[in-house]
């Protein structure tokens, strides 16, 4: 019996005729209507079959709610009208920005468009910043291949881009004697297939991490795991790309495409129509929509939300590395490698994430229950974990495909598109390797029409904003004598100086919001959450940009903090 027949029988049993499967052009397509979003996702997960089909397209109509349309920028102009870049990259997350930088190694004109007001505004700025060793990835997966390659590239890439990176390592802890026994054998598997790992018995583990649960029987230590600031790296990639001639257009959303004979001819945006030779789809949760516009849809995204909590620096002293427990986060059922307890590069502890299916692709709201559940689970690893240490929490949405794998390839039908889609965890780890391959694919496609040479001017080095806090007293003193602004502390919690805030406003990727400054130099990241420094940073933005105070946004256009001069404002 064919797979389709068997599948339809199963779907009939489960959904009583509401869902049908059929094949279209080498892809498996689901159609029908369901009232529960979880059922829509379950049908997709039930149907997916990588061996027989190129991809699963889930076209089941969700009748139980309204899927919100993509949030669009309010800006309308013609700034990009008629532009003819060799390569148009859609999406300014870590994948799009890394691809832009790698594309700059070739003699190609590159335009990167991002619908938000800054780069790294969605998944890339909303994850735990873990550079994964690849503990629970399966040989054969595309994401495993890129994870392993990307992980190895991190030391060099972070050194070139001047981004702090630390290979702190990761412990995977086992709570029972039985599991400890299994762990001993698991290390044999890892020795054969990677990643590198070391078995630690109870005594050795507790000696290294004395504050963790004393009931932990054994742990596997993966020395290749690391931590990085995910938005910091994305911004660094984008800055280096722009420094090398890439044009970046923020507040720019792709609205439609025109095709002619399997080629994208034009791409319309809120800032005019672009005529690219090659299009790269790095649109994250919206990569399926881009593929649809490009008439090259062979995968579907089912967004999955995760919430993380950040603890005060004080709590980070409890451990030296990333610590997770087997059975809390590393389960395949939940589809998240979630770090467990991650000691971040900025010396906070991050707790999370969970994994919740959602049809709202941009709902970054948080809920108390999710956080309480995550804490409850992670207390298996650190029983002293307390919500009282929380300074903030955030949610991100992963762009999962039903194959639970990355889509990194040239178009199936459409000739001038390359997809870097379905990138979820471990996307941060994989991005450097993805970028190398995707930029090469773009260059290969372009080479069909003209010769593409390497760019001899490409400079891989980017200098970060100075971090006076990390200098010795003598060096810091010297710096302040040259530029007094580095001697005026604006943010007391994170010790950020006026000089750093000013520098953040004059980089090659524009920044003019409170949160934009916060992502670059950290004022407001500390325990007071910007209560003291917020108004000071706002005044510096006004001084440096010439914008009136009441026009400055917290994070995005429409997010002004102030309404105008007192007594002149009419109440509502």
């Amino acid at each position, binding site marked *: 019996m064919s797979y389709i027949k068997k599948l339809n029988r199963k779907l009939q049993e489960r959904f009583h005729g509401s869902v049908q499967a059929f094949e279209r052009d080498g892809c498996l397509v689901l159609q029908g209507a369901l009232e529960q979003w979880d059922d829509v996702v379950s049908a997709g997960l039930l149907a997916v079959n990588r061996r027989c089909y190129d991809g699963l397209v889930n076209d089941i109509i969700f009748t139980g709610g309204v899927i919100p349309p993509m*949030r669009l920028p309010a800006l309308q102009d013609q700034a990009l009208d008629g532009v003819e870049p060799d390569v148009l990259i859609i999406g300014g997350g870590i994948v799009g920005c890394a691809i832009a930088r790698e594309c700059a190694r070739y003699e190609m004109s590159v335009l990167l468009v991002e619908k938000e007001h800054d780069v790294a505004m969605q998944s890339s700025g909303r994850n735990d910043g873990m550079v994964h060793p690849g503990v629970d990835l399966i040989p054969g997966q595309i994401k495993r291949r890129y994870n392993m390659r990307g992980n190895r590239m991190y030391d060099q890439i972070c050194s070139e881009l001047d981004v702090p990176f630390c290979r702190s390592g990761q412990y995977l802890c086992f709570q029972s004697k039985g599991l400890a026994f299994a762990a001993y054998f698991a290390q044999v598997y890892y020795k054969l297939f990677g990643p590198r790992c070391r078995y630690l018995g109870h005594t050795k583990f507790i000696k290294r991490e004395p504050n963790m649960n004393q009931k932990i029987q054994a742990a596997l230590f993966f020395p290749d795991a690391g931590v990085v600031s995910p938005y910091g790296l994305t911004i660094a990639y984008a800055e280096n790309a722009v420094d090398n001639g890439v044009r970046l257009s923020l507040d720019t959303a792709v609205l439609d495409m025109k095709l002619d004979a399997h080629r994208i001819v034009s791409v319309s945006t809120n800032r005019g129509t672009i005529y690219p030779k090659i299009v790269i789809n790095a649109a994250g949760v919206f990569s399926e929509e881009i593929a649809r516009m490009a008439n090259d849809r062979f995968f579907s995204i089912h967004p999955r939300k995760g919430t993380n909590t950040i603890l005060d620096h004080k709590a980070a002293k409890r451990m030296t590395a990333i610590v997770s427990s087997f059975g809390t986060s590393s389960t395949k059922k939940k589809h998240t490698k979630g770090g467990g307890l991650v000691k971040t590069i900025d010396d906070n502890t991050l707790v999370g994430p969970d994994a919740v299916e959602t049809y709202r692709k941009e709902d*970054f*709201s*948080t*809920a*108390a229950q999710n*956080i309480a559940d995550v804490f409850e689970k992670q207390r298996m690893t650190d029983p002293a974990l307390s*919500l*009282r240490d*929380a*300074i*903030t*929490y*955030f949610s991100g949405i992963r762009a999962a495909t039903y194959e639970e794998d990355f889509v990194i390839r040239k178009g199936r039908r459409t000739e001038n598109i390359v997809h870097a889609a379905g990138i979820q965890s471990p996307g941060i780890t994989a991005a450097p390797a993805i970028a190398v391959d995707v930029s090469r694919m773009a260059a290969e496609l372009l080479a069909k029409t003209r010769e593409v040479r390497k760019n001899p001017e490409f400079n891989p080095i980017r200098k970060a904003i100075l971090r006076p*806090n990390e200098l010795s*007293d*003598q060096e*810091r*003193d010297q710096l*302040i*004598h040259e530029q*007094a*602004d580095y*001697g*005026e*502390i604006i943010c*007391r919690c994170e*010790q950020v*100086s006026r000089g750093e805030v000013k520098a953040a406003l004059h980089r090659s990727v524009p920044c003019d919001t409170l949160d934009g400054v916060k992502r670059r130099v950290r004022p407001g990241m500390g*325990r*007071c*959450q*910007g*209560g*003291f420094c*917020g*108004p000071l940073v706002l*005044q510096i933005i006004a001084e440096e940009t010439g914008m009136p*105070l*009441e026009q400055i*946004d*917290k*994070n*995005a*256009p*429409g*997010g*002004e*903090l*102030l*309404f*105008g*001069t*007192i*007594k*002149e*404002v*009419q*109440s*509502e």
Partner: protein
Amino acid sequence: MIETLTFDVTVVGAGPAGLAAALEADAQGAKTLLIEREARLGGILKQCIHDGFGLVRFGEKLSGPEYAERFMEQLPKSKVTVFTLSFVSKIEREDGVNILTLVTRDGIRLIRTRSLVLATGCRERTSRQIGVHGRHCAGVFTAGTAQYYTNILGKLPTKRCVILGSGDIGLIMARRLTLEGAKVVGVFEAKPTPSGLTRNISQCLWDFDIPLHTSKTVTRVFGEARMSAVEIASVDDCMCPVAGTEEIIPCDALILSVGLIPENELAESIGVPIDPKTKGALVDERNETLVSGVFACGNALHVNDLVDYVSESGETAGKHAAHPLPIQRNLVPVECDASLLYVVPQRLNQNTEDTERVFFFRSSADLDNATLTVTRNGQTLFSKKYAHLRPPEMERLSVHLKSDQLAGAEPVCFHLEGSRNE
């Protein structure tokens, strides 16, 4: 070349506590340094343009800046050295001497000081610490931040807002925002009773017809880039929102007045033990912490209700910082049971000639006809009657206790009794 300066007394923070401490240390003849992070002295008083400051101390109702001015105008007449825009990035201790690393616009400076007075004030609890969820959009402000925008920058952070928490700054901001043209929909308090001073509830809410809703809290925030509404709900006895009581209130801002936390990061960095009740340092009656030579005062020690007490606490610290004890302290613990929120100081020194001991305490419940009893070894040292005690209102108590009454290691115990006022 990094400059090293030496002082007898160094005061960190030039709010009301630090100003008083520095002036007092100077008056006692100590070579004194006053360090302020901001460009101007006065601390949070600069933005407190409402009146009511100084009733106890000066017998008049002053505004915050006027109150600070009373101290600041004495500075030029004193020998106090003042550094503004100077940030203490590190404190180390070497043979009982404190070495501070200062970051200033003139470079790094090292300060060697025998006595250190920490007058670092407090910070506001944030929306995240009380678990406000939903969208993380623009429009969530702590009351102090909203006050800075309104009073220092002259800009309005809201046109229509909800205030969560009935702490004093929240009440004052309700009035202030109303006067400046914003609509305050209401003040919501999760506890069954308001947290602010009675006079503020009357003068800031009732006089302006601003409703106060107790046993209600904000559960969610809605909006895209800027807030568009909040969800409020009633809470049960455990402060948990009750399902089915949710109500959506359209507004562009949520102003929070949900508590203050003493700032003690510097103190903790040099190992000063902290009282979990006050979140400030453990001190003796001279405001010296358990680390000799390190003093704490003002809101960094415990959150005060009146600035007058903050100044007094600064003076106590400044005076004793100028005169190190010739002999080692012999400290007796001061404890309180659950009938009190806390009592300061938490230690008393046996080895002192001074018999006057000043205590500050807060009752943990609304009490009528209350009696405070202070015992040691089961014997009553003294007792005092109060017609009425409320947790938001701090009590000051001066008692004479002789050294022989403090002999031995047994704790001095504070206990309150009275009829609960529901």
